[in-house]
């Protein structure tokens, strides 16, 4: 109840005209930043940072977090409309979101995405409110073996999805791991796999790969099929937004499950990206019609979006309470905290309750504001698809390569994005799954680091992964997730064999 009183106090701080106006401004700027290529949330936040030096910390963090929510929404918009994920965590949204847009259901896809994202964020904030003290203590229990176990769980839930050839799945995933290991290896201090090319020193950015594999690859395929975006025919009316909202409660189970996955991944070190992938995988696994996934199934949009935002908002807690930034954006915000004269850490809650609870209250309000603002933009964005392809196609090309260049200000990245585009096109046509490659690229090096740190801890003994109840149960869940589909398919195979024999006999 103490938390509840603090929250009410927080609302008094956050609910002023000045702060609500800041939220609106932040969200709008964020959407712009999220939609524009090459800006993205971390850039947007560092852009606004100098402006906040003269503000009081509560106003400053409200502006920056609102901008962050806005950018996340903007990122989902480009994922759905153009198959270009603005943030790693919105990759899973493309799987079903973009097919929906191509079928002329962009309004529906966008509305589902925003509403479920808002739902997920709310779930995350409610958790922070109720359990802040407990979560902060729980997160301290995590060390490298537990980190590795969480990443392992994510991979395990994703392997065995989809009907692609196992060889092709392995190629795709191992390529992702290989790309992730290019550049500086922080555990040994070696520069790996750069073949003495300076341009590879910073590694291959995940964003470059995504721009190529998804954005350019998709365009090439669209051209080959001679298709235009069918959004041309789609009518866009604000009423559709409302109609979609009314359909949302039907997916209560997906919303609930995804929120739980998201919150869990947010307070453990998995983070929003792992959360959205895992949530998508679990939705497909538990669905009665898994074959519909990837072809425009609303649940395939709702699940990753809910989990992404649930994780994103609940991850603010470890950031404030422990001082670990969960993402690049959080790292910039933490830099901001220091410049404002605040030290993230366990004492922040005690020393500056006005700041912490003002922020938490602003997360409630900010998300409501963000969802309303962003829903209002749906008709606008959905009608972008009505522009003829001979204009929008080249425009997307320009946008993709601007994005590729601005990631690291390197001309080399432009060529790299083109190469990934060709790979994406070939892989898609030949039924290589791309998702495992992307997932491996995002959390591959983190998983490797965690594994090798664990080995340093235990001096080379694998038993560390069963050394305490927490890590042991995480590993057990991971193994179960890995083995269940295998058992299932073997059983099905045997049954088929048996019935075939019986039929023969």
């Amino acid at each position: 109840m103490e938390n509840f009183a603090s929250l009410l106090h927080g609302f008094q701080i956050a609910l002023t005209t000045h702060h609500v106006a800041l939220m609106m401004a932040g969200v709008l700027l964020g959407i712009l930043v999220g939609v524009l290529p090459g800006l993205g949330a971390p850039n947007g936040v560092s852009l606004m940072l100098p402006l906040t030096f003269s503000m009081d910390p509560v106003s400053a963090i409200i502006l920056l977090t609102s901008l962050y929510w806005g950018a996340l929404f903007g990122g989902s918009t480009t994922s759905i409309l153009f198959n270009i994920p603005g943030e790693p965590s919105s990759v899973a949204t493309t799987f079903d979101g973009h097919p929906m847009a191509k079928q002329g259901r962009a309004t529906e896809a966008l509305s589902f995405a925003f509403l479920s994202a808002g739902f997920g964020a709310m779930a995350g904030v409610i958790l922070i409110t109720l359990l802040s003290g407990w979560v902060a203590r729980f997160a301290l229990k995590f060390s490298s073996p537990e980190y590795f176990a969480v990443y392992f769980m994510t991979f395990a839930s994703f392997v065995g999805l989809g009907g692609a050839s196992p060889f092709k799945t392995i190629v795709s995933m191992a390529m992702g791991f290989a790309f992730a290991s290019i550049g500086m290896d922080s555990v040994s201090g070696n520069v790996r796999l750069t073949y003495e090319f300076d341009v590879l020193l910073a590694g291959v950015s995940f964003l470059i790969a995504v721009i190529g594999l998804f954005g350019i690859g998709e365009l090439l395929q669209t051209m080959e099929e001679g298709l235009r975006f069918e959004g041309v025919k789609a009518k866009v009316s604000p009423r559709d937004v409302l109609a979609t909202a009314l359909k949302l409660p039907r997916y209560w189970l997906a919303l609930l499950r995804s929120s739980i996955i998201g919150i869990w991944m947010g307070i453990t070190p998995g983070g929003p990206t792992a959360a959205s992938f895992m949530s998508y995988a679990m939705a497909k696994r538990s669905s009665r019609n898994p074959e519909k996934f990837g072809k425009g199934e609303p649940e395939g949009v709702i699940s990753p979006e809910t989990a992404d935002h649930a994780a994103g908002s609940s991850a603010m807690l470890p950031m404030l309470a422990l001082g670990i930034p969960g993402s690049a954006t959080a790292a910039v915000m933490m830099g901001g905290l220091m410049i404002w004269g605040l030290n993230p850490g366990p004492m922040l809650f005690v020393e500056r309750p006005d700041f912490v609870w003002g922020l938490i209250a602003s997360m409630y309000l900010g998300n409501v504001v963000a969802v309303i603002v962003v829903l209002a933009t749906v008709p606008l964005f959905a009608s972008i698809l009505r522009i003829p392809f001979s204009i929008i196609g080249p425009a997307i090309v320009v946008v993709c390569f601007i994005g590729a260049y601005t990631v690291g200000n390197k001309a080399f990245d432009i060529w790299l994005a083109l190469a990934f585009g060709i790979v994406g096109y070939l892989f898609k046509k030949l039924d290589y799954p791309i998702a495992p490659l992307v997932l491996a690229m995002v959390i591959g090096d983190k998983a490797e680091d965690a594994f090798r740190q664990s080995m340093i801890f235990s001096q080379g003994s694998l038993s560390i992964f069963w050394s305490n109840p927490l890590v042991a149960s995480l590993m057990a869940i991971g193994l179960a997730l890995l083995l269940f589909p295998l058992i299932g398919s073997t059983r099905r195979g045997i049954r088929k064999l048996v019935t075939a024999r019986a039929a023969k006999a």
Partner: protein
Amino acid sequence: MKRFCIAAGAALASVIAAVVPAAAWQPTKPIEFVVTSGPGGGTDNFARIVQSIITKHKLIEQPVVVLNKGGGSGAEGYIYGKGAKGDAHKVVFGTNNAYLLPYVAKLGYKFSDLTPVSALALDEFLIWVKGDAPYADAKAYVEAAKAKPGSLKMAGSQSKDTDQTLTAMIQEATGAKWIYVPFQGGGAAATQLAGGHVDSNTNNPNENIGQWKAGQVKPLCVFSPVRLAKSDPVHDGKGWGDIPTCKEAGLPLEAFQMPRTVWLPAEVPADAVAFYADVMEKVSKTPEWAEFIARTAQTARFMKGKEFTDFVAKDEAANAKVFKSEGWVVN
């Protein structure tokens, strides 16, 4: 008359000579601050504070843009600086890694690809242990490590970087032996210590202050020649100035500090170097800078010209000695 003319001419020439160098080089387009760390890193904070002070006090006419190039432990930024040879509109911000990285990794730049400008501060290193650890002082902790060689764990950020170098120096000086565990950054090293997964770390003050305030960790000693500046109490009535130096605490180690440095690409006009050194000197005298230094418990120390290059030579030699004895040198 003639003599007067000569004298006047000489006087005029000396006046011009005195005036011209200061105005000889001025930026003519926006300036890039190249940061050799990712957003939120120590070097990033350093560069952004300098940027905000320059903007606030209008020390440079042109706009200043910050660019993060933190790949390869910062090598990406230095290589970018190498590529900008002769371009005095690109200023590279870093630490001592500018001259130390080429020792431990095969990289596409040499220290001679950079022109030294100045250093603005020295960041400090401390030995931190868990708040409820039984060690009263540094000596007791080192004795405990000696008693169980190779079983206590020391956390730090990155590999073959300052934290691991310092750990190697402590081992060399005391004969104790730790397991060094490299994490992504000082923040992770801090939480790992607070959670009791490692026994100690060698974090900078700024990286552990949050945990110290909560009493989850405590400092044993600081690797500085003199005690840190007095400050408000952080935890349990103790402030930064109350922490003994490691030498006082009985560790035979003189000092270990990390300079916050500013560089230009090679082959830039000497006047440009003087221009930036002058700007940085002005920055180091502002109240905002003093406030930043106090908040992060660094030691303010402005160095330029020969003083700076002498410091670099000394620091490079001391670190290279450790790299050689640890077998980290690559070429």
